[in-house]
């Protein structure tokens, strides 16, 4: 049995504004095991991004605890919706950004980043500017920028939502295979059911805001090696239907 790398217990997050207070996340508990690919799915605006910000410790929970079992200083890698590559930096310099900021830039880490670029087909584009490469490639660069800091836990916030459907499927395959090969524990947040089923081992379905866990699905599609193959599998439709029902069902079925 593998250890939990992340454990959230009874987490609540309240935001205050001039006119109102908003409960974004309420009494939420979840756990992620080492090497697991977890998808968190919920209706738009239900507080998914808040959840990732909490895990990344960008914001503090109002109540509850978030435990991360890692001895690294920068244990969490966070990939945002858009690539946010800096247009004045070359692909290579963009990838090194995280290492520079965390003051981990040395010969070995630089080589690691450079090897990742080579390995995932960007070796010839190191000296290119982001504007000179395609949207799918930019997303790959963004992932490698996150991986370069060698995090124990990878957070993905709808990383494909900015891409058109065709590219989206390709990049999803891409990213999935990179994550699997680098053997990273991953939490993906999305509102796209098919995307969640095509990559995840475990799917948490969240309710409307305030986000609570409605149900947890275990996906047994590991025999299919790529997201695309999973999408074509027989079981895919069954999972889709179940999750769709759960997602759109009344919240009081809890």
């Amino acid at each position, binding site marked *: 049995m593998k250890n939990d790398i992340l454990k959230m217990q009874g987490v609540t997050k309240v935001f205050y504004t001039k006119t109102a207070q908003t409960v974004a996340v309420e009494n939420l508990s979840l756990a992620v095991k080492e090497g697991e690919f977890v998808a968190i799915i919920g209706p738009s605006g239900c507080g998914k991004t808040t959840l990732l910000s909490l895990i990344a410790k960008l914001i503090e929970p109002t109540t509850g605890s978030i435990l991360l079992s890692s001895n690294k200083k920068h244990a969490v890698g966070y990939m*945002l919706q858009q690539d946010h590559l800096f247009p*004045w930096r070359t692909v290579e310099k963009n990838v090194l950004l995280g290492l520079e900021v965390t003051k981990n830039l040395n010969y070995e880490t630089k080589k690691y980043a450079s090897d990742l670029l080579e390995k995932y087909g960007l070796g010839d584009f190191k000296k290119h500017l982001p504007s000179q490469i395609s949207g799918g490639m930019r997303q790959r660069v963004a992932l490698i920028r996150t991986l370069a*800091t060698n995090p124990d836990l990878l957070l993905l916030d709808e990383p494909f939502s900015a891409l058109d459907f065709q590219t989206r499927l390709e990049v999803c395959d891409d990213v999935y295979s990179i994550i699997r090969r680098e053997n990273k524990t991953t939490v993906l947040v999305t509102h796209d059911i098919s995307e969640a089923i095509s990559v995840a081992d475990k799917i948490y379905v969240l309710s409307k805001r305030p986000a609570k866990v409605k149900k947890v699905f275990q996906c047994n599609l590991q025999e299919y090696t790529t997201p695309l193959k999973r999408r074509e599998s027989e079981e895919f439709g069954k999972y889709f239907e179940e999750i769709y029902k759960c997602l759109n069902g009344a919240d009081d079925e809890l």
Partner: protein
Amino acid sequence: MNFNEFSPMHLAYLKKQRTTKIVVHLLQVAFLLVFLGVWELATHLGWVDGFIFSSPSRVWKTLTDLFSQGDLIKHVWASTWETILGFFIGTVLGMLIAIILWWNDMVKRVFEPYLVVLNSLPKIALGPLIIIWAGTGKAAIVTMAVLISVVITALNMLVGFCQTEPSKILLMRTFKANKAQIFFKLVFPANIPNLLATLKINVGMSWVGTITGEYLVSKEGLGYLIVYGSQVFRLDLVMTCTIVLCLLAGLMYGSVALLEKSVKFDQ
């Protein structure tokens, strides 16, 4: 670039682009020549009074006289030096103010209204005060040039800094970046186009500061010559200095534009 790869139609397109560019330049030169010609002719034929309106030939004569007396270089140098000094001090100071205000939200919220008021205040109104405070020498003129460019620089840069994409800042924060890292790795580089645009504005601003400063106090410089010329009714001198001023400001603007071109990146 390899022109062999271009199709005939593409080459024709490029040629047309080039022709248009040449035609524009030719027309620009032609306009200047026609303008000078009509001006000269008008004074010769007595349509306008050459004593009041001057003429290209009179300007040329004044220019060569000034040059041979060694006055031209002296005055041009004085004004240019004051302007460059005002330009650099104003830009650096304005930038520092913008950085401080960006850095500390509390400071920004307290001082922004003052900055906005200062920006709308015509700085020339401070002229008499500056003379009393900074004396009647070059210091007063440079102070004027600095005052005119510093506020607009601070405001422009601050707006730029604050408009840095929040999600890019979030990206930096996911790497646990501190404020200095966010500034030097993201906010500042992202604002280089903004900085260059501000530099362009400041060229004009510091010339305004220098010339108005020289109007008020000074014993040399183009502004001094213009005021002196108008007082003794030597309008040839006034016209000549104005034209030299045009050339100098154009030259300075041109160098900033050149700098901009050399650091441009694809956004």
